[in-house]
């Protein structure tokens, strides 16, 4: 009896080997798509790409066209790039964004800088952990309408289907699909494109990761040391290579995806934020999540203003003064309330006294995170404009 069991185990083992072998051969023999090569900046880890949407050169190229194409919106006037402009690190320079029908979103357009490392997506949603999940919201959402595809699905697909460039791009990206003109393919391609938006060649990077000790000014270095000090406390939330604790990559076994209340509001004296911008509370309904938002990356922050989830601060100077004051006291108007006294405020927003010189140094440091290569990289630019030139 024991012999039979052993023999069975052995046969099963061999079958496994053969099966695994076949598997490997099939995928390796598919010459139609080209695996993406990352060429990461020094100091950057590999990102965690979902297994069901592997990165390919062809999907990235298709995604770039789709990202810049207003034909993807229901009424043909708005593209992803309307609210995510490369020169502004893929933000839009507005306090809050407007959709294709003019309706505004309640929130500030988020930078796509290093979005492949995001712990979560949007300003405050613990369950959105993949770009693919986030993307369907601006595409199909109706409250508010952004891209406005809902109700116009076939029309949008027909526009793409009838375009010769897209016929080639879709066929190249999805050689196995008989009809690749579907929204799953579109979402996967755009996700692949934005995952390539990696920024890692700022003055800070050259100083920290490339050994160029003259890359940052003395003031910026002073500001950096203040940033990492127990006086200013900035680094607790904006930490690591991506300047946010909400960062996940390929070896993150214990994912960190926190949200924080920074004392921007306190409309009811109990920590309340104005609806519909109450942070994770909007999703969870738990009072402790009131005003809790994801700390965004600070890379390229020089060009991503206005700041905060609702764009309620114009300048970096205003932001630094806000943290120095340990919150925002709004004296009058519908949002009146002392955010400094917000009981749900994170314990590290305790304020600091600083000289003007030190505040300027901190801002100089934040500006040393600007990556001009990223803001002008042709690989992230509008392919339609390139084609016309």
């Amino acid at each position, binding site marked *: 009896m024991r012999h039979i069991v052993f023999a069975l185990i052995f046969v099963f083992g061999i079958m496994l080997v053969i099966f695994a072998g076949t598997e490997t051969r099939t995928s390796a023999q598919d010459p139609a798509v080209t695996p993406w090569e990352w060429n990461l900046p020094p100091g950057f880890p590999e990102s965690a790409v979902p297994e069901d949407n592997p990165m390919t050169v062809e999907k990235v190229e298709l995604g770039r066209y789709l990202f810049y194409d207003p034909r993807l919106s229901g009424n043909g006037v708005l593209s992803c790039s309307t609210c995510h402009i490369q020169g502004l690190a893929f933000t839009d320079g507005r306090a809050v964004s407007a959709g294709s029908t003019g309706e505004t979103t309640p929130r500030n357009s988020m930078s796509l800088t290093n979005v492949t490392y995001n712990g979560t997506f949007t300003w405050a949603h613990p369950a959105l952990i993949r770009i693919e999940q986030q993307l369907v919201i601006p595409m199909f959402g109706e409250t508010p309408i952004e891209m406005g595809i809902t109700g116009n699905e076939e029309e949008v697909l027909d526009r793409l289907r009838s375009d010769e460039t897209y016929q080639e791009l879709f066929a190249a990206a999805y050689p196995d699909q008989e009809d690749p003109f579907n929204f799953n393919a579109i979402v996967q391609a755009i996700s692949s494109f934005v995952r390539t938006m990696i920024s890692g060649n700022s003055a800070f990077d050259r100083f920290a990761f490339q050994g160029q000790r003259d890359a940052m000014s003395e003031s910026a270095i002073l500001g950096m040391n203040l940033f990492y000090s127990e006086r200013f406390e900035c680094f607790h939330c904006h930490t690591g290579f991506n300047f946010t604790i909400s960062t996940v990559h390929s070896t*993150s076994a214990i994912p*960190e995806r926190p949200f924080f209340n920074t004392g921007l509001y306190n409309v009811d004296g109990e920590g309340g934020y104005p609806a519909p911008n109450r942070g994770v509370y909007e999703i969870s309904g738990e009072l*402790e999540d009131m005003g809790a938002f994801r700390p965004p990356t600070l890379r390229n922050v020089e060009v991503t203003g206005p700041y905060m989830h609702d764009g309620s601060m114009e300048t970096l100077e205003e932001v630094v003064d806000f943290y120095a004051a340990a919150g925002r006291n709004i004296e009058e108007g519908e949002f009146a309330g002392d955010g400094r006294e917000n009981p749900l405020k994170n314990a590290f927003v305790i304020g600091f006294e600083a000289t003007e010189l030190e505040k300027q140094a901190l801002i100089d440091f934040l500006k040393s995170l600007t990556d001009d290569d990223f803001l002008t990289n042709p690989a992230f630019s509008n392919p339609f404009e390139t084609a016309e030139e």
Partner: protein
Amino acid sequence: MKRLFPIVLLVLIIFPLADVQAQDDLIILQFTGAVGDEVFSCGTVYEGLGAEETATEFMDFRFYVHDIRLINAGGEEVPVELMQDGVWQVENVALLDFEDGSGRCDVGNQAINATVEGMVPAGEYTGVVFKMGVPFELNHNDTTLAPSPLNLTGMWWNWQTGYKFIRVDMLAGEEDPIPWNIHLGSTGCDSPAAVVPPEDVCSRLNVMEVRLDEFDLENDVIVADLAGLLEDVNLVESDPMPPGCQAGFDDPDCPQLFPNFGLDLETGECLEGDCSGQTLFRVAARENVTIIEDVDVMSDMDMEGHTEDHSQHSN
């Protein structure tokens, strides 16, 4: 003969394994987090802590241990070789994590780890020795490139200072509670800037060694007791820069706390050579305490099941 081949093959594979098992034992060091006689949890307010008997809620409770040794009957210290599990243990370092991300533990995550697993030569052991913290060789690497659990940015300051060996964040006081945080790590680490690792060992390592002479692996548990750690610490006041003790040699909140780690604030070494004055760790019989159970890391696949609501916008 041919039919015998698979059996011979299996025997060849199994025998060396069996051989190792005969010499080494897999041991599990059970820890738990407590606040006095109560089990630790996020979202609970504990009464009567510190010198002024302050009601306190905890917002984080995690620490690293390394260089774990068991003491055998002859009094010798035998190193424990940690299992490399890709999550909680790497090289000779392990992370103990008692917070579950609930309540005000907003920096944390759902996963909990109260155990350390490793191999030791088979034998009788009567005690355990370990260090709290991260060894200097691993302490100043880039946290984002380091293997888990050394890639948790919440447990890290920067390249120059390295990791927070222990992180205990608190809200102390009933009305208008104040933040009171304990972050212990090395100080006096000399490098040109915060983002540059030091070449020489930091002048104050602040690594405490914990020696528990009477410890029964099967029946005892190592209790990390925050009420003990806060003994005689004034939680009513905190010098606001920073709130609580962040290990700075001139941090006014540190002198009262450091003896409870058994550490000398000025030198970063054990007081009286052995840190035996520490009040954080003690041994208890498993049957006498509530043991915090491990909770596995929630996989991303599990997370996706929670995307149910549709009242949302893209940003």
